[in-house]
């Protein structure tokens, strides 16, 4: 797809954030800051429509404009910008995967995170404070050694810690002989970390908007116009749009929206809950996860302890879960980090996870020509925000996947080339 040359897409100069700008505006009592993005009317025609105004959709639009010169783009969001899973995740960024396709893709994304604040002129608060996976048994230590070695072979940092090293790294953790969940060691990715969940959406939105992308909120897609097996139009609650190419980035609603184009997908939508406690002084300096115990924790820059666990386990679009999952996470967290027992949980929420049949994402073409899909992220889409936008923009611009997402095609289930990290098989809620 050629870059826009004849199409006059107005870009506006983005008022750069800087110390100088801050000082200047302070003297003017901060009355000169422009809005971070516009609220444009929907045009009747665009070259590319991205369905979904979350981190992935906005990143895709940004990279389409920035790297491929395609600026006649609309991002349609049925709610408010970043209000879906981008507003509900637990902010972890890592690339500690076993399978090559996953490892290489997520590592590419992690490297994009490293330069993102400068690239977008927006502080996404990326903090590479380390992600530690705990091992509670000998066989887990063996498995972690294997995964760590695979990571190293893919150029990704990995360190296998023994119990003493874990105790030094996470003093808050109960690593004693009496622990309810004995800790034998862990696999550490030191370059992994966290980022501010909404800032990345705002950063991509502001940068994409400045390049001429229209971000239209409160605009829900209700259908597609398909002629001869090719998508030619998008029907929305604010009118019909003629389009050349369409990219879906709608997370938990992937199955539903793809259904408007007659597609049935290997996806089940599930609820994942997360919680934050009241803010306290810094006591947890890294991200610590336990796959076996289904509990992961970190501490936000505001001081809140951020907790998450396993899926509730049943299909859901409700964006909230039930108390058994809450009890499970609370019990695990208090058993592993006893000092947390006094903290009050301030907020809880849920997201809609598009769980695939192998636990890995789906990025690429669909049987409908010019309709592309970025979905099936299960509960791991946040870390992929810049990476998925980057490969999805390439896929839409070229009509073919990039080498980094070639293995994530929808057809892999029919051909038997599934990417199953856990080896859990075609059981979405087990991934």
């Amino acid at each position, binding site marked *: 797809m050629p870059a826009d040359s004849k199409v006059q897409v107005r870009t506006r100069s983005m008022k750069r954030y800087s110390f100088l700008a801050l000082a200047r505006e302070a003297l003017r009592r901060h009355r000169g800051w422009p809005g971070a993005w516009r609220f444009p009317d929907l045009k009747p025609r665009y070259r590319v429509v991205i369905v979904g105004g979350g981190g992935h959709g906005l990143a895709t639009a940004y990279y389409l404009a920035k790297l491929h010169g395609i600026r006649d783009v609309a991002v349609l969001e049925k709610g408010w910008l970043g209000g879906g899973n981008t507003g509900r995740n637990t902010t972890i960024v890592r690339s500690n995967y076993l399978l090559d396709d996953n490892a290489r893709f997520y590592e590419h994304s992690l490297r994009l995170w490293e330069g993102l604040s400068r690239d977008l002129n927006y502080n996404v608060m990326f903090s590479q404070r380390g992600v530690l996976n705990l091992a509670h048994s000998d066989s887990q230590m063996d498995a972690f050694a294997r995964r760590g070695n695979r990571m190293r072979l893919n150029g990704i940092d990995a360190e296998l810690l023994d119990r003493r090293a874990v105790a030094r790294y996470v003093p808050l953790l109960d690593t004693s002989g009496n622990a309810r969940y004995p800790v034998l060691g862990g696999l550490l990715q030191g370059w992994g970390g966290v980022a501010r969940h909404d800032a990345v959406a705002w950063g991509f939105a502001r940068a994409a908007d400045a390049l001429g992308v229209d971000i239209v909120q409160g605009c829900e897609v209700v259908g597609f116009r398909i002629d001869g097996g090719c998508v030619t139009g998008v029907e929305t609650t604010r009118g019909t749009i003629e389009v050349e190419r369409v990219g879906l980035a709608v997370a938990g*609603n992937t*199955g*539903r929206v793809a*259904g408007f*184009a*007659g*597609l*049935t*997908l*290997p*996806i*089940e*939508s599930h609820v994942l809950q997360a919680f934050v406690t009241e803010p306290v002084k810094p006591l947890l300096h890294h991200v610590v996860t336990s796959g076996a115990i289904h509990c992961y924790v970190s501490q936000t820059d505001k001081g809140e302890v951020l907790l998450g666990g396993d899926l509730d*386990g*049943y*299909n*859901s*679009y*409700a964006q909230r879960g*039930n*108390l*058994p999952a809450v009890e499970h996470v609370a019990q695990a967290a208090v058993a592993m980090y006893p000092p947390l027992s006094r903290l009050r949980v301030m907020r809880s929420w849920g997201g809609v996870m598009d769980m695939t*049949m192998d636990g890995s994402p789906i990025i690429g073409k*669909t*049987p*409908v020509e010019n309709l592309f899909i970025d979905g099936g992220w299960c509960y791991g889409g946040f870390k992929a925000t810049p990476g998925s936008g980057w490969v999805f923009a390439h896929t839409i611009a070229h009509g073919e996947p990039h080498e980094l997402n070639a293995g994530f095609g*929808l*057809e892999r*289930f*029919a051909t038997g080339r599934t990417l199953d990290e856990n080896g859990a098989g*075609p*059981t*979405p*809620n087990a991934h």
Partner: protein
Amino acid sequence: MLLIPCPHCGERAQVEFAYGGDATRQRPHDGAPDEAWYEYVYLRGNPRGPHREWWLHHGGCGQWIRVTRDTATHAVLGAEPAGGPPGDGAVSGIRPDGKGAEEGGRAPAGSAAAEAGGSVA
């Protein structure tokens, strides 16, 4: 806490149950083509709204039951014992490998779906 109306035991808390996923799929017969198996193993309707699904009452009678539950509100609309055809819920449309849905090996739609209007005591 979901309250699931087990047809054998009455209304019980969700912690007594294990989730078994979509209950509308029909296992293909042994000689069915690969496409039918692919659909059965991988494709799901995944509706936003009433969903017929399996739950196993491992903390009670130990039986599999079919529950209808709304996936947007979590309201449990009814439950019935396992057994009999799965009823309407046929997967249709264009599949990811581009072929149309296979009709072979699927039970007739709309049969025996005697959904209870409320909880089954």
